[in-house]
């Protein structure tokens, strides 16, 4: 019958009917399917899986027994720990007694709140960047990078302020106030703070010039108030000699991270520049700093820089270390960014210049966003490396987290207690590095949206 029908309609084209889709066989999906495919796909793989599981279990039970089960939590010195459990369990009281020093170094105990407050200010400063309905995110981010360091420096160091420092600290305070005023006004009214002030003081909605003038006046008033507060407010001086522990590690790596990215971008652009002089200088800088170990650079800056400076000019030891770390990190970052730039097809530059963009516009708006996006894993990898490399500052006499951990075992009460503090700071380093790497994955996922088919 179908054949007859087909014959009857021989001059009609056949109708193509696609087959319906079927679900995959159950053995290839779900947990069982995954285990079969990945853990037990052959006899040798199954054996390796079991061996790996065995080693992992032995290793982790040993660590947990030492660190938690057999550990001593209360004792007044190391002798007590050894008498109770010997070396089978960890002796945590020494670490606990030293926690303030591990976190803040030798910073005076009654002043530690300044560090905590400065840290909270940073969190509050950056928080609006993750809030929805906030439009001025570029301004908020830039102000955090450019102005927070002045405010934080004063919190950390304190002491007498000259005119320049008063102006800069006030700028930091005004910027912080602006961040939250504009965040609140944008989240409630959808307008930036300046525009809201202009409305409230009676500027007509469609008069852009009047709005701008009133917004400027509002910002000026904000700044003057901040200057007033700054002149009335002072903190006692805490010399950088007393800075240390996790706090110092974060200060050095924070400067290194925030400086190295913009500096690296500029150096990478410089190296690719058509202008021979700029290209030569950038290349020379990058190659010089990349071919010398960080330890050497730290030594050079610490011992030799003062010899070159004019008599009477003294640069603080911490500042010298920070500058050395920043320059070293910038050279590495430059090569990472250059790699990213090379991955962007020439057609992107051409398309940007064909629609009428100049060099800086096409670099900032078309090329860099794409290059940095590709480079996120490498850039964050570099940040993580930098964070850990700051331990090297201990050899020029700064008391970073690692040096403080070593000091625990040199304390007469806890003499010889090295393993526990190292275990503790390992955890701290791990938490920071793991968070950075998770954040980078998160960023990749978010920015990659829509870029894949």
């Amino acid at each position, binding site marked *: 019958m179908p054949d007859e029908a087909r014959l009857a309609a021989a001059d009609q084209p056949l109708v193509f009917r696609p087959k319906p889709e079927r679900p995959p066989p159950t053995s290839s999906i779900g947990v069982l399917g995954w285990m079969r495919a990945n853990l037990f796909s052959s006899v040798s793989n199954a054996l390796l899986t079991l061996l790996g599981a065995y080693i992992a279990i032995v290793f982790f039970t040993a660590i947990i027994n030492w660190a938690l089960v057999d550990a001593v939590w209360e004792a007044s010195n190391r002798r007590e720990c050894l008498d109770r459990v010997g070396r089978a369990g960890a002796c945590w009281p020494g670490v606990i007694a030293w926690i303030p020093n591990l976190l803040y170094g030798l910073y005076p105990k009654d002043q530690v709140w300044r560090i905590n407050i400065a840290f909270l200010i940073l969190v509050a400063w950056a928080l609006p960047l993750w809030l929805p309905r906030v439009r001025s995110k570029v301004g908020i981010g830039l102000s955090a990078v450019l102005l927070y360091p002045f405010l934080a420096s004063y919190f950390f160091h304190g002491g007498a302020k000259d005119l320049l420092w008063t102006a800069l600290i006030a700028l930091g305070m005004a910027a912080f106030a602006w961040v939250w005023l504009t965040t609140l006004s944008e989240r409630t009214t959808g307008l930036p703070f300046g525009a809201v002030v202009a409305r409230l003081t009676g500027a007509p909605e469609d008069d852009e010039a009047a709005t701008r003038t009133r917004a400027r006046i509002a910002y000026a008033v904000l700044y003057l108030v901040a200057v007033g507060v700054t002149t009335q407010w002072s903190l006692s001086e805490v010399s950088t000699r007393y800075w240390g522990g996790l706090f110092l590690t974060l200060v050095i790596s924070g400067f290194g991270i925030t400086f190295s990215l913009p500096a690296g971008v500029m150096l990478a652009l410089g190296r690719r520049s058509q202008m021979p002089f700029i290209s030569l200088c950038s290349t020379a800088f990058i190659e010089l700093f990349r071919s010398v170990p960080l330890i050497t650079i730290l030594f050079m800056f610490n011992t030799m820089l003062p010899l070159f400076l004019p008599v009477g000019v003294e640069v603080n030891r911490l500042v010298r270390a920070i500058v050395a770390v920043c320059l070293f990190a910038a050279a590495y970052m430059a090569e990472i960014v250059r790699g990213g730039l090379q991955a962007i*097809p020439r*057609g*992107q530059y*051409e*398309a*940007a*210049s*064909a*629609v*009428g*963009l*100049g060099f800086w*516009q096409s670099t900032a*708006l*078309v090329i860099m*966003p*794409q290059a940095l*996006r590709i480079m996120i894993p490498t850039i964050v990898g570099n940040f993580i490396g930098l964070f850990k490399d700051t331990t090297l500052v201990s050899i020029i006499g700064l008391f970073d987290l690692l040096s403080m951990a070593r000091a625990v075992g040199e304390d007469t009460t806890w003499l010889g207690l090295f393993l526990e503090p190292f275990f503790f700071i390992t955890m701290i380093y791990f938490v920071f590095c793991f968070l950075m790497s998770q954040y980078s994955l998160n960023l990749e996922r978010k*920015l990659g949206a*829509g*870029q*894949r*088919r």
Partner: protein
Amino acid sequence: MSGAAATLAPAATRTGVPAIELIGLNKWFGHFHVLKDIDLQVAEGEKVVVCGPSGSGKSTMIRCVNQLEQQQEGRVVIHGRAFGESAQKDEEIRRDIGMVFQQFNLFPHMTVLENCTFALTWVKHLPKAEAEAIAMSLLERVHIPEQAKKYPLQLSGGQQQRVAIARALCMRPRIMLFDEPTSALDPEMINEVLEVMVELAESGMTMMVVTHEMGFARKVADRVIFMDQGEIVEGAPPEVFFANPRYDRTRLFLSQIL
């Protein structure tokens, strides 16, 4: 010039000055002589199709027109204004020229709409709403307003190329350059792009198109130019060019692609 040209081009610009003039153009890549003594005039509203074997210099020539490539000898004059006086004037001249590339070159990190509004916001400094209105009207003109919120890589090749055309048109150019606009496309998508180009030609735009789509050349070109080894071998209206090419080299080329 067709009647439609009068409706698109402002009256003041139709002065008889050629839209594009290439005068004694010579260019080398290293020691390789890519363009040899190119002289070419394209009138306002004229549509010129450039064809030739690969390596003949046709892409380099069209890229010289908006100075993506710079010649070592000769001059490029657009609407009577020569390139090379100052960087700022070059930028201004270039804004009159839109370009569509073989590989689309859309900005992958921006949506289709942002690709189109981008130059309006950053070069012409238009407010967002106005820029979006212009971009939407041009996306409608290339028949894909519904894709405005997507990212380029989510679209088919043909759709991407139409976005690229819309992006170039947003700047209201007086000249459009097309560098092999359909060569990177799957065969079934070539027509949707050519249709848009035909509509554009009918609106009176000055166009220079490097392509092997001879059907398109027959339909819209005022002149077809054949290039080989860095020289313009011959150029003629399509009916003459296809029926009766003067050079053996042209005949050989046509026999290979038709």
